């Protein structure tokens, strides 16, 4: 079904990712199909040729991300989609994308793990892998979504942040959001804000592909534009050639972090509900945030001071939201709800630093946490 204008549609989360990618100007997809992300590949295979784009089914997920990085270096907005087993294979290339500063969007629709795990069941077990799956110190941006419409919006945002900061961006969905269908009204064509990478304006002979800039993000030439430069996974100097000079190493690697840190305010997104006077705040993301929302509303009806902090960005971890809530002085406990054994829970412990209690409610049996479970746990801390 083709969306036209702002007509209402019944769309799957994965289908909304396809629509978001096309709306923001994605012209290249390379991937290897895997449940529960396959509908993204199916959709783009059907739709990309019509907009002059390219769809490649690769031999595996290593090749998939390699092809995306190559396409991006040639100027395309590129994307791949996978799930846990394929995401594990992509780790090497994620680090390459970070150090060589190549925009790309990687969608991981999480299923139960480890290994091939539970192919058709939801999970949120890849949160830490998105942060530290590839080796070495590196910055990363990881977004998530709780609804079909948000899957569209976050896909657009993932491309835009990727282009702006010249860094791979991971969109981390779970099976429930990927496969769930909801009624949505998508923005009309052309109404979606597009960010394009900054291209060099100097003559080719003056171009330094990894130079310091005010934003920390150097202009990016496309292969074929006449700007010849060297791309490597080795730590490199401002011209892109390998270096062992201590000052160049520190300057280059620190710039990778600085460019992202400058953007924390626009990158780190959260949504709060009923947190103003909340004594217990649920922390949730993805599909679990929907259960949490229902539990919090139920407790509010009963006059209990419950609130919800929904994380839309997972990495960089949205610490400012916790500081804001703690600063109000009403919260006594956070309850982290997630479909793993407590990955974001540890992060909340880290940022709260003993200023309130932190509890967790987790499930890793392939089922979505229910509102009743969250309400029951909340009552214990209110």
């Amino acid at each position, binding site marked *: 079904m083709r969306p036209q204008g702002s007509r*209402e*549609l*019944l769309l799957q989360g994965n289908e909304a990712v396809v629509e978001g990618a096309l709306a923001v100007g994605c012209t290249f997809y390379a991937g290897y199909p895997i*449940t529960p992300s396959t509908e993204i590949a199916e959709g783009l295979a059907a739709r990309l040729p019509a907009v002059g784009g390219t769809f490649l089914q690769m031999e595996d997920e290593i090749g998939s991300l390699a092809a995306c990085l190559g396409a991006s270096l040639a100027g395309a907005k590129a994307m791949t989609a996978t799930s846990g087993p394929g995401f594990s294979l992509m780790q090497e290339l994620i680090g390459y994308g970070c150090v060589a500063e190549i925009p790309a969007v990687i969608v991981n629709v999480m299923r139960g793990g480890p290994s091939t795990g539970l*192919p*058709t*069941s939801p999970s949120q077990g890849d949160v830490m892998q998105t942060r530290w799956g590839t080796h070495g110190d590196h910055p990363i941006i990881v977004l998530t979504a709780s609804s079909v419409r948000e899957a569209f919006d976050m896909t657009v945002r993932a491309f835009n942040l990727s282009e702006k900061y010249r860094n791979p961006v991971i969109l981390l969905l779970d099976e*429930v959001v990927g*496969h*769930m*269908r*909801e*009624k949505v009204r998508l923005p009309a064509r052309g109404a979606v804000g597009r960010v394009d990478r900054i291209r060099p304006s100097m003559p080719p002979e003056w171009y330094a592909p990894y130079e310091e800039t005010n934003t920390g993000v150097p202009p990016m030439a496309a292969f074929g534009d006449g700007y010849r430069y060297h791309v490597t996974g080795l730590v490199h100097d401002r011209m892109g050639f390998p270096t062992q000079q201590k000052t160049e190493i520190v300057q280059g690697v620190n710039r990778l972090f600085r460019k992202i840190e400058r953007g924390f305010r626009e990158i780190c997104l959260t949504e709060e509900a009923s947190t103003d006077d909340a004594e217990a705040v649920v922390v949730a993301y993805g*599909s679990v945030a*929907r*259960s949490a*929302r*229902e539990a919090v*509303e139920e407790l509010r009806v009963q006059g209990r001071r419950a609130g919800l902090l929904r994380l839309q960005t997972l990495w960089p971890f949205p610490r400012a939201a916790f500081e804001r809530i703690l600063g109000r002085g009403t919260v006594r406990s956070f309850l982290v709800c997630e479909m793993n054994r407590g990955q974001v829970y540890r992060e909340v412990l880290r940022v709260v630093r003993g200023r309130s209690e932190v509890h967790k409610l987790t499930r890793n049996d392939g089922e*979505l946490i*229910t*509102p*009743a479970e969250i309400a029951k746990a909340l009552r214990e801390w209110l």
Partner: protein
Amino acid sequence: MRIEVRLAGSGGQGLITAGIILAEAAGLHEGKNVVQTQSYGPEARGGASKAEVVISDGPIHYPKAQRLDVLLAMTQEACDRYFHDLKHEGALIVDADLVPTPPSSSALSVPIVRKVREDLGRELFANIAALGVLAGATGVVGLPALEAAVLARVPAGTEEPNRKALELGLTLGRDAVENPRESEPYEADE
């Protein structure tokens, strides 16, 4: 008001497609809020499969069904497994041949697959007929919306048999409600 429907059976029976059509009927054609979810095993065919549709006038946060208003069971296993999720006043619809021993005497037992095979020559349209039964027996969705959703979703060239399957199901569903005894599995016409 929140209405929860579960269509349960085995992979390949077309129940997820039926769930999508039901959601489109209630959501796009009747203007309600809907969320459709599914769960299935790793197998391409066979294995337990279910589709759920939550219909509401208000926002739908938790997307899954918990306390069912309607359970359509197309295998004995699905019926036994999910019967306890049905509300006391909820409607249980089962295929008379595929669910030989419904767990409740109030079950609407309808020979959906058999009738489709007899009338249309192929079992292929049983999922659409099942939607007709659901509409005829429960009224969770209106016939005009359902018919529009079916015709918008099925492959071109199959509109006519699908429309017939829907009408057949609707008649079977209405009959089952009006004459519950006649639709008992062992009294079904041979």
